[in-house]
């Protein structure tokens, strides 16, 4: 500062009054305009774990979408002659060379089974000779589909239930909360087993069962948030302007709830996937021959001691999906609510 003063030439002209200070100019906001979501995404980008998870999930989703139309081979086609082949991508790649240790000797299983040259099973085959990679693709797709459907229930029932309960308050809220408590007191598994008595096991009954119970956390979160939002002055302002409750919900409540909703969704998808895997694993989930992560694990587990690859890969994929969703959800929570970070 002292330097500045020395350099500055003070002349009589320096003390001329500057009239009419341009107030308008200094009220200008020079910083770039960021919407709330842009700002949140900017913070999310800085979170490396969340970004890696995001890209991983994106790849997994794309592969599953592709599996709807194309898989390397038919995932349900049995070929007993090619049963239990180890993974093979090429000669000499450790773990993917098509060789197996049988009684202390390394054996080329592909040659033993007379597999024609050029036919490789990237992740090997199962006990019925089905291509595991194709089954895994289909299985992940099915698991994601279940996660998605369960989440739709979550959004449709949970959000509206929470909004209505929180907005009305009083007796309505009281009754609605008691209903929630009753539903949540019944274990999910009991509901699923009851559902299986009524319907055939399969996608529908699993989704129905999860739809019946999964929305409760969402409803509770949305209700709690709505209770605080409805006494916010901007909501009061909307009421004094004559805005109807439905419009207030759409214009003010849902946008301000969006971060809570998105985060909860991110947590509920892996929960649904895991629940499906669990059901299929214990044998009351997706029926054969369809593949899901749960059925793949159940099949692989039977021969785990001899053919570990049959379980390793589905287990790894399930773990990756679970971890990635959770890390992404954590990242989103920090991005949406920067206060929790510090």
């Amino acid at each position, binding site marked *: 500062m002292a330097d500045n003063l020395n350099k500055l030439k003070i002349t009589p002209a320096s003390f001329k009054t500057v009239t009419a200070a341009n107030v308008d100019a200094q009220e200008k906001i020079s910083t770039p305009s960021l919407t709330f979501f842009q700002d949140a995404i900017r913070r999310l980008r800085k979170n490396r774990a969340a970004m890696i998870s995001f890209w991983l999930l994106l790849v997994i989703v794309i592969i599953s979408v592709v599996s709807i139309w194309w898989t390397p081979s038919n995932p349900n086609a049995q070929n007993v002659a090619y049963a239990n082949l180890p993974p093979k991508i090429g000669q000499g790649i450790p773990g993917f060379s098509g060789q197996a240790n049988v009684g202390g000797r390394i054996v080329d299983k592909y040659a033993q089974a007379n597999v024609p040259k050029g036919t490789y099973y990237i992740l090997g085959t199962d006990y019925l000779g089905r291509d595991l990679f194709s089954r895994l693709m289909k299985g992940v797709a099915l698991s994601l589909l279940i996660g998605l459907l369960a989440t739709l229930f979550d959004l449709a029932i949970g959000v509206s239930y929470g909004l209505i309960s929180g907005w009305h308050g009083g007796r309505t809220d009281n009754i609605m909360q008691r209903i929630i408590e009753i539903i949540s007191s019944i274990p999910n598994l009991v509901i699923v087993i009851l559902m299986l008595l009524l319907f055939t096991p399969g996608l529908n009954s699993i989704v129905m069962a999860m739809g019946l119970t999964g929305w409760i956390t969402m409803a509770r979160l949305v209700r709690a948030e709505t209770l605080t939002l409805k006494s916010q002055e901007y909501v009061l302002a909307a009421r004094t302007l004559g805005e109807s409750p439905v419009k207030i919900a759409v214009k003010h409540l849902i946008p301000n709830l*969006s971060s809570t909703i998105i985060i909860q969704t991110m947590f509920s998808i892996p929960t649904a996937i895991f629940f499906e895997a669990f059901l299929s694993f214990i044998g009351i989930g997706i029926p054969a021959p369809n593949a899901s992560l749960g059925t793949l694990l159940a099949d692989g587990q039977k021969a785990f001691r001899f053919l570990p690859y049959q379980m390793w890969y589905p287990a790894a994929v399930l773990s990756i999906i679970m971890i990635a969703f959770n890390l992404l959800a954590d990242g989103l929570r920090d991005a949406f609510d920067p206060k929790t970070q510090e």
Partner: protein
Amino acid sequence: MTTNNTTARKKLIEVKHLKQYFNAGKANEVKAIDDISFDIYEGETFGLVGESGSGKSTTGRSIIRLYQPTSGQILFDGQDISQIKHRDMLSFRRDMQMIFQDPYASLDPRMKVKDIIAEGLDVHHLVHSEQERGARVNKLLDLVGLSRDHATRYPHEFSGGQRQRIGIARALAVNPKFIIADEPISALDVSIQAQVVNLLRDIQKKQKLTYLFIAHDLSMVKYISDRIAVMHNGKLIELATADEVYNHPLHPYTKSLLSAVPLPDPVAERARQRTDYNDAIEFDGQQRTLQEITPDHFVLATNDEVIAYRKLAQV
């Protein structure tokens, strides 16, 4: 302060024996407002002062029907607002608007300024095209002294004073007759408070508005109001013109309140004599009503106290 001819003035708001209890009949009953009555004349600024918990904000919210009164009547332009039918509610909402206390909580953080300001226009279908909407928003921005480029920005980009001006523009959008200002400046910095108060006064003159100005800052209320009511424990304890309340306060609570106002004047501060107030005298079980002591000067008192107050007023 504008001098009004008392006899010819029209009553815009009449509050009659308003009671607002929360959790009525339960163990945790709160008598937020306990039987208050007052009128607000057209074109005036009616100041409502009181400390936290006095029921001043609740009064404002009851008048604008954010709450359903426990008992009593509120007349707006001669019409009982609790009797307004659903289809007339919209027009009532247009006539009466509110400016809120917290400039950070009163604007939806997810909406652009132009959508916040135009919310009332949309609700009441006051504009019919996107251009008309934009033009109205620009006009309102000009009115409250904000730049037109601000329309596409989000509330968090503004300072407290600017946000409060956005809130004022939102209230003005529907051309109300009556505005309730609920502590509109208490969250603002001193240098910004004056801007907002000047703005409120300018708009009042331009649009012939009536204000209910709720605040705890007595200097500011004195400055902006024509008449002032002092509230304490849900009751209206003194009501008179602004000058009368400040120069000749009668109720001991009002006196105590005035004696506590900090002054930007060290000499006066050194000489300050604060009088304490013990609210036990309110709970002696006697029935008190608002009684006229001198013309247009009302105090909550028993009949015996009235005589004492009259003597006091003559000194």
